[in-house]
């Protein structure tokens, strides 16, 4: 018999190493970044200016213009993933579990997942060549038009990462016990009914989770835009998302002097947006999704 106090002490000892690593490498940098956003260090010293940087970010016409533009683009970037990546990923997962595939299932699963293992730089480079007006398959400058540039980049990203929701939902579908499926077949459910009435409700929690993960990934997105268009993503900032705006502000670009405080401010705002939305999602939606004991 171990006394409760001892048990708690042991618990603390076991948790401590992981907690220490988490605090040192995640919590502290995050906090120091947030703290940095309350200072002004442009004139050599470092002066505490409370919310001065935030006021500047939202009131300066130039910077706030870039911020709202980047936020709008990030929302669009996410929306395209939400509308294309998740439904198609779900469809692929459903097809992969279909009985008619049998032998070729492994091949399809591998093929569809391969793009997710490629480097973003390679994906960007290949697609840029495919849609290059000089040597590619379309003569329309998809990446050079302010209306089509962001959707084009989003779809490249969807193409690359579609394997992830697919494999995620596929494993969830596999976990559904066969007897439930058989029982509903005997009860006369059509394949359509079988999927939407039986299978989908059972994987709804996973679907919700992959949705919110996609949201976090796309709002933290940076690499594909940077790989294709650099840190001042054109044409005329039409592909500038929050990640590239932060990068440009914090590290500077060719002509732009780096502004650490303002960069930290933007990082904090991005963090706050993602935190609030994710928290709201878990409180409002994820809890209401019914989970079934199988």
């Amino acid at each position, binding site marked *: 018999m171990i006394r409760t106090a001892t048990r708690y002490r042991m618990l603390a000892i076991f948790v401590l190493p992981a907690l220490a690593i988490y605090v040192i490498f995640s919590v502290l940098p995050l906090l120091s970044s947030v703290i940095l956003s309350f200072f002004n260090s442009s004139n050599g010293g470092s002066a505490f200016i409370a919310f001065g940087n935030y006021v500047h970010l939202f009131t300066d016409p130039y910077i706030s213009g870039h911020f709202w533009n980047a936020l709008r683009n990030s929302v669009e970037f996410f929306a395209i993933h939400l509308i294309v990546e998740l439904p198609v990923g779900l469809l692929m997962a459903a097809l992969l579990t279909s009985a008619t595939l049998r032998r070729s299932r492994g091949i399809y699963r591998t093929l569809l997942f391969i793009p997710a293992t490629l480097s973003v730089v390679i994906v960007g480079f290949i697609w840029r060549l495919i849609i290059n*007006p000089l040597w590619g398959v379309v*003569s329309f*400058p998809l990446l050079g038009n302010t209306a089509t540039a962001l959707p084009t980049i989003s779809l490249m990203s969807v193409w690359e990462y579609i394997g992830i929701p697919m494999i995620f939902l596929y494993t969830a579908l596999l976990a559904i016990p066969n007897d439930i499926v058989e029982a509903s077949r005997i009860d006369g459910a059509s394949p359509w009914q079988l999927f939407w009435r039986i299978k989908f409700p059972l994987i709804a929690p996973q679907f919700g989770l992959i949705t919110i993960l996609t949201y976090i990934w796309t709002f933290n997105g940076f690499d594909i835009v940077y790989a294709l268009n650099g840190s001042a993503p054109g044409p005329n900032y039409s592909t500038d998302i929050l990640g590239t705006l932060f990068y440009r502000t914090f590290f500077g670009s060719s*002509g732009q*002097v780096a502004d650490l405080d303002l960069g930290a401010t933007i990082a904090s705002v991005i963090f706050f947006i993602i935190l609030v939305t994710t928290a709201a999602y878990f409180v409002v939606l994820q809890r209401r999704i019914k989970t079934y004991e199988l």
Partner: protein
Amino acid sequence: MRSKLAPFAIVVVAAATIGLSGCSAGTGGTGDAKVTTITFGNWRTEDAKLWESSVIPAFEKAHPEIKVTYQATSTNDYNAAIQSKVESGTGPDVIMCRPFDVNRAWIEKGYFDNLKSLTSISNFTPTALAAWTGADGDPYCMPIASVLAGFYYNKTIFKELGLSVPTTMAEFTSDLKKIKANGKYTPLALGSADGWQLAYNVLDSIGPNYWQGEAGRLGLIDGTKKLTDPDFVAATQAFADLKPYLPDGYQSLKYEDMMQLFTLGKAAIIPDGSWDVTAASATGLDIGVFAAPVVKAGDQRYLQEMPDQGVGLNAKSKNKTASKVFLEWLGTTDFQKIYVDKVPGFFSMGTAAVPYTNKLSQQFADLKKGAKLTPRLALDRLSAGTPPLDDDTWAVLQTVLNDGVSAEAAQQKLQTGLDSWYKPAK
């Protein structure tokens, strides 16, 4: 057996090496006690071989009492590395200087010694030194190399279509028209996906002929001129007028695409920088270079010369005498001859002419004759705030080509952005 002996062998060899190197260092130290070693901090990691095998040996031959250590940091980390090293007193003795704003900040922080007492400084014009002068107007870095902007053209295509090399904007436009009418080649290999390319290689190349080079550039800095003045609008208009001669889908063509188009012999002219002399002639095409054409025949010609590297003396250096000898030497044609020969596309900034072995480099250098030189428009002081004029120019020039924004509106937008933070020193 072997595995048991190996550790001993390693220990023996290592001990011997350490012992020997210790001995040789000892004898070296007692032999020539006067040898001073200085370190040369810079961002040109790609030139390490050239400096270590050609430039530094040439210097050490002339000055056996000094040894130079080449200490390169990659270009992205360079500014941060130099700042932390110099401030903690461990910086290299001589430091490569970034042009304009970054270096001006470094001068203000007291990183460099004033170089006006060096005799080699007189080998350079004030324009050449301008990128590295302090608030007092004195030089703080010895200019090493610059890059030029111009237009490469395919001589075979020019011959085939019976074109002559343009010297005025009217001739330039007429050439472009003829190439377009012929229909076989793209007149101008230029895409708008890379904004910097539009600014550095096109507007800042043809523009100085409209805004009279330094007169216009310094006018913007001291506030006597505005970007909305007719000269600047006319320059942007001339830029916008190139639109009909660009390849299809130019909106999404990047710099590499344009260079490919040109080197495959499918485009007649490409506006580009001198750093590309090797790339432009890589496929063996017969290529020439012409300078940005003047507005009207008989006008003074202006050429973009962008300072790239200078070298300054660390104010906290412990080997200032030796460092000054090195800096003096970097300002001579002895150095420049070796340097420009090994790095085609980079040019000596001195007043004395230096021969170039690369044919295209020599052609580029010849463009300097009779031209007044001026650096890129927006990099000196005008981009040290938000919005930086340079970045703004890139995006605005894209809208001029892609969305048909007028030259007046474009210049107005740039001036408004500049007015929001830039206060000219009166």
